[in-house]
């Protein structure tokens, strides 16, 4: 069930100069979270941040009542969240949105760019439970931007592209050699900048591979009340916060 819940900052763990893990803890139980779900985080007492900020759930620990987020500090709100002292109060509205459809006993390729790596630990865990094999492909500008590799490596093989060639293969994700044998995969999951996801879905579709893309449209509410976050689909304009954030790429008319 969706709810507003009070949390306390347990830590903000900076991973590089522009991204961090925000770990929040609560006295009470944490709701069930499905891979792909997100939360709307209230940036506490910030003069210039009016609305909540939608952030995917990176990890959750039901034993210790903690929930964590992987956040790129790109603007006012995300910078302020990353500067919170331990012990600060933060409330979130969650769990929001739909989730990825994890396949059973299959071969999954997970492609992430930018902050779009956040939902993929939970997804990979679920895929593994269902006996599917996970390959990650992360793209970034430079090696500096590639973080949390050890974490992801726990769940699957990690491939990397960087635009400057400083780590993994040089180029854009869609230029990675894994695409030479793309039909080895039963499904592709992707999250990241729209152009990347569009390119990925195009390849997936032309190879008849199911592709699920998680969108990051701008949101005012996050739970279907405002109709601000729409994306055009074969069914008309649909809210990314309720019908998504995960869409089958074939349904998207972007």
């Amino acid at each position, binding site marked *: 069930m*969706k709810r507003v819940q009070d949390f306390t900052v347990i830590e903000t763990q900076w991973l590089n100069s522009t991204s961090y893990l925000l770990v929040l803890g609560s006295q009470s139980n944490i709701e069930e979270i499905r891979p792909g779900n997100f939360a709307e985080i209230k940036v506490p007492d910030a003069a210039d941040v*009016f609305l909540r900020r939608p952030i995917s759930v990176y990890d959750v620990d039901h034993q210790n009542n903690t929930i964590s987020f992987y956040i790129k500090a790109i603007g006012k709100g995300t910078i302020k969240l990353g500067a919170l002292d331990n012990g600060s109060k933060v409330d979130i509205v969650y769990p929001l949105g739909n989730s990825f459809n994890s396949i059973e006993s299959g071969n999954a390729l997970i492609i992430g760019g930018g902050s779009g790596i956040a939902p993929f630990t939970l997804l990979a865990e679920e895929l593994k439970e269902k006996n599917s094999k996970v390959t990650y492909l992360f793209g970034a500008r430079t090696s500096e931007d590639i973080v949390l590799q050890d974490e992801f490596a726990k769940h699957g093989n990690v491939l990397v592209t960087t635009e400057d060639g400083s780590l993994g293969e040089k180029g854009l994700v869609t230029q990675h050699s894994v695409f030479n044998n793309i039909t080895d995969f039963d499904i592709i999951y992707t999250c990241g900048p729209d152009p990347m996801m569009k390119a990925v879905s195009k390849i997936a579709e032309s190879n008849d591979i199911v592709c699920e893309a998680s969108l990051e449209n*701008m949101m005012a*509410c996050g*739970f279907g*009340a405002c*109709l*601000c*976050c729409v994306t055009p689909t074969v069914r*008309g304009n649909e809210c990314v916060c309720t019908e998504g954030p995960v869409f089958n790429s074939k349904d998207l008319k972007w």
Partner: protein
Amino acid sequence: MVNLNVDIAGLKLKNPVTTASGTFGFGEEFEDFIDLNKLGGIFVKGLTLHNREGNDYPRMAETPSGMLNAVGLQNKGIDYFLNTIYPRIKKWDTEIFPNINGSVVEDYVAVAEKLVGVEGINGLELNISCPNVKEGGMAFGVSCPSAIAVTKAVRDVYDKPIIVKLSPNVTDITEIAKGVEGAGADSVSLVNTLLGMAIDAATKKPVLSTITGGLSGPAIKPVALRMVWQVYNAVKIPIVGMGGIMNGTDAIEFMLAGSTAIQVGTANFIDPQISIKIIDEIEAYCINNGITDVNELIGGLIT
């Protein structure tokens, strides 16, 4: 014990707190967060005669203490509402107010006609102030003759309370308020959003697909409060006040300025439980101030 009941043209609300059209979906979106039966009323998302896809994305821009929206009345049409949505939501023990919209007078009339005789729907909000549609919408609300014309036309076909929603984008809102009062409106609600605009200096482009959009949130509260006060001094029909109400104190201010009931809008996005908190805060204010009937607040400003 504080009496929280208020009366909008003979329609009794259990308390003055309702939710603003377009900011509360059809209520269902808030079912997980609050007990909807506690609300004075729900003004549902704007409805039109036919399905509307609304405007292109992006439809939203955050602004200082507010936001711009350019949703453009996306909805599946009045029939879908009545056949599919309303049966699901009519169970709640609160007043459901459809918010009706059109590009031409005939559209408004056609939508209103569909609402005639619908059991459990005891009034409608006639939106003549949507800034986010190309034709109709705000055009009706910024000219006195057209505001009167559309109100009269809907009045002719609909006999339950009509609440006409006014635009703040006018030189003299009292003129329009008096006009629609004369045309048979039972109440006026105000304000809709202020027409605004946001630019992204980095891309040199407008943030919204429609260039301009509607400004809501606390930023507009001083303007909304002023207009409620002006209209309160100009008409006799009850006022449903809104514009940037974020807490109980804001709601009290709108009542002191002359609102019989209030609508909570943008605040719902930031705190989906805020409407219920506002009811509690109004009650607490009354208790602390020795007020036994919330109606004492209406227009109670000491000048």
